[in-house]
């Protein structure tokens, strides 16, 4: 992305006007393990949501908290703090 920009595309002082545009960046490809949620065990306590450093876990329509794999870097914090052990980390397959 940056390497397509020329000097003419930059704002005065390199200011970025598009707030939060980093959300276009994929960080899911850093992952070596991914979290799998067992909805049977999940009690919807949202601890995984609040402790995710990448804000990759999102509340779903049904009230679960699910990882957005576009962002999830696979740290495993969610799996380690889940009081019900509803999340397990499994190896990411070769793409």
């Amino acid at each position: 992305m940056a390497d397509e920009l020329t000097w003419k595309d930059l704002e005065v002082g390199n200011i970025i006007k598009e707030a939060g545009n980093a959300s276009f960046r994929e960080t899911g490809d850093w992952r070596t393990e991914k979290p799998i949620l067992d909805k049977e065990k999940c009690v919807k306590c949202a601890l995984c949501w609040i402790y995710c450093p990448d804000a990759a876990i999102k509340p779903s329509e049904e009230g679960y908290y699910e990882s957005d794999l576009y962002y999830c870097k696979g740290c495993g914090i969610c799996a380690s703090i889940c009081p019900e052990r509803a999340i397990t980390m499994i190896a990411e397959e070769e793409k």
Partner: protein
Amino acid sequence: MSQRVALEASHAVAEAVRMADVDVISAYPITPQTHIPERLAEMVANGELNAAYIPVESEHSALSTCLGAAAVGARTFTATAGQGLELMHEVVYIASSMRYPVVMAVCNRALSAPLNVWGDHSDAMAVRDTGWIQVFCQNGQEAFDLTLWAFRVGEDPKVLFPVMVHLDGFTLSHVTEPVILPEQSEVDRFLPRFQYPFALDPDKPMTHGAFGPPDIYSETKLAQEVAFRKSKKVILQGWQEFGDIFHRYYHPVEEYKTEDAQTLLLTMGAFTETAKIVIDERRDKGESIGLISLRLWRPFPFEEFRQAVKGAKVLIVFDRCISFGLGGPVFAEIRSALYDEEPRPKVVGIIGGLGGRDMSEEDFDYVINRGREIAEKGSDRILETVNIR
């Protein structure tokens, strides 16, 4: 009605800042700059100026505070000298690269060691590549005028660059002269309110100062240089408007008795006035000699400069700084600026006036005589100097 009053040049700067209705002043005391912040602090304390005066704990913080204030849209001012400018050096680059139009007066001072609080241009030369618009003053009136003008130009939405106003420490900063102070209404006509288009604001959240990896850093620098060069247009326009309102006209290169001059002397700053006396005497005796003085130092006024020296045979550049291992920094730049010109004058450089060493008329006589001699025969000295034992 405008008034003619006796003012110390430092106080003339403070008057300009007051009339510009500046919002935030942040400064740290250092000789010979002290009279500027002192006077401003007094104005704020007395209610003559409605501004925040922030007595910071260092020059680094002085300029940093101005950056923060400018980022929310405040008109900002600081002043420093010598070591203070060196201490804030890192921040000086930031101000121009992030395009905050801070105005800073620099009461030029020598650099330690040995410690010396008196004037020369070492501090100015150490920041010549920092991307600030820079001008040199020769007297108290200019100190007032150029400070006012600095806000007008720096804050122009087509510019948005910081501006440094250099005035020689003591030999100008502490000199009292008659200065014409304009009416506030005239100032208001000349200087519109600062309308910063990118102010930090929760309703329009912007990111200032993102980091530039190798795939984009070069582009940021090119953009900065192009914008900086283009600021020249507004610089000239600003001086034109200034002249139209206040009837004093300024030019990037000031020429004095240069018509048909075979020899030209080049000076910057307050010693220019002494040099002019020598030029007058020599002209009276029928010598073909004139003087040019760089008022605009950055962006470098190539065009006006080349025009000003056209036809001259010898150009003697007087530097008040040593670029160690190279010589006079202004001299080196001037010679490079003329390299492609055909024909061009022979350019020679002489260094003096360091750390408060005075330059008398006799000293300038020596500069001119020796300059011509070098132009003719060359020099076998490591450094050509004047009045240095």
